[in-house]
């Protein structure tokens, strides 16, 4: 797995582009390993891995060794080695009018 690689979910419509890859990280979506080619026969996202993905968002592991850019959203959620990945979100200055 190298930067620019596209990964496909085996459980939903999620597709991601690898931006930063840790060593031998196992990337999962919906509880099942993601594939480097489109998956025809999909299973359902399972257990706690059903929180969905949002297009355009970046997903990172806690240590920041892996970063994935979601290019197509789905119902499964992303995990690395079984641990849910978080969203690298904008932290804008709070505003109110």
């Amino acid at each position: 797995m190298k930067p620019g690689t596209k990964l496909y979910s085996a459980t939903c419509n999620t597709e991601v582009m690898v931006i930063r890859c840790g060593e031998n990280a196992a990337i999962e979506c919906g509880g099942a390993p993601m594939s480097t080619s489109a998956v025809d026969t999909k299973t359902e996202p399972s257990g706690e891995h059903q929180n969905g993905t949002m297009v355009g968002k970046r997903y990172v592991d806690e240590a920041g060794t892996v970063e994935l850019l979601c290019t197509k959203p789905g119902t499964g959620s992303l995990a690395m080695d079984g641990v849910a990945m978080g969203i690298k979100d904008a932290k804008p200055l709070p505003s109110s009018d």
Partner: protein
Amino acid sequence: MTQVMKGIRVLEVAQYTFVPAAGAILADWGADVIKIEHPTRGDNQRGFINLGGITTKPNRSPFVEHPNRGKRSVGVDISNPEGMEIIYEFAKTADVFLTNYLPHQRQRMKFDVEHIRAINPDIIYARGSAYGDKGPERNSGGFDGTAFWNRSGIAHAMTPEELEGPLSQGIPAFGDSIGAMNIAGGISAALFHRLRTGEATEVDVSLLSTAWWASGTTLDIALDYNEAPRNRMPTSGGNRGNALMGNYWTSDRGTINMCTLSPAPHIRSFFEHIDRPELADDERFATVEAFMQNWEAASEIIKSAFSMQPLNFWREKLKTYSGQWAPVQSMFEMMRDEQALANDMIFEVEAADGGDPIKLVRGPVQFDHTPVTTTRAPVMAEHTEIALMELGIEWDRIEELKQNGAIA
């Protein structure tokens, strides 16, 4: 929409609505707009917790879509010199540089016109500001609430003198959205000029100049006559000199706005529509001169007629009236207005949260009767890698720039 700006690249270093919405208009028209955002904070527009008194929803931001649809977002820290080198790389490829950063910020971070022109002498350099790029306050920031609405005289003119304080703008980004179209128009003219002469110009639009132009009729009268029109307290009845001008209240407290500036050809039609056809031959109203002379009598008759029936009755009834009028509608009624929808005022973009598509308002200009087709606003820094790779920057370099915080 016919892509009149296809092939034009806009490099936008701007935040909030006024200036980014100009980029959005150009993107609607087919331009490739690269939006530069701070690598961790993003555009401050993303930070609204409340807008117009409404609590915003995380991950669903129509107020980010309005000024940013159709763009790509690249996360660059412009205060980092290596980040600024990336801005220069983009500037080489751009036709337009669009910014609302203040002069001292542009100087400090070295992206003022002379810095960008040193990279690309043919670039059109467009600035949006609060008060203009000349004068003692060119370094002062502002929003439409300050520059467009309050300082400009608009709040004062909108507010009847009987009220204890000035009305507030009431519509978020009202001045910003109008001003954005002014910027987009200015950029279009600058592109046209460059095409004809090869000469690249600087373009300035301020929120204050936007307000002056929008209030131009009042200001021009005031400059010459030394008196200025000002709003009156809401009432049911005609305006001085023309009873077919003014708001009339209906039995259910709706309002019909009569706006027949030149009443002559419409007096008979109007009296027929309030079931008083005989009044068209009444000597008080039989000529336009008499009708305008006797405006108070006409106003009383019309006011009484409107007060007898509900708004919907008059909406139907007046459809065949030959003159100009309108019902006073809410924004919710406007959203369902058949005529507005027939002119493609609403289009949809994909929602980044995976929910229902987000409905957005198109810009005021339409080409060839075709609706807007564009994409959703980018997520912050969504396109950093792809846009940098398009510039020919290698992945290893992208990683380095990330490591030192120049990009996100």
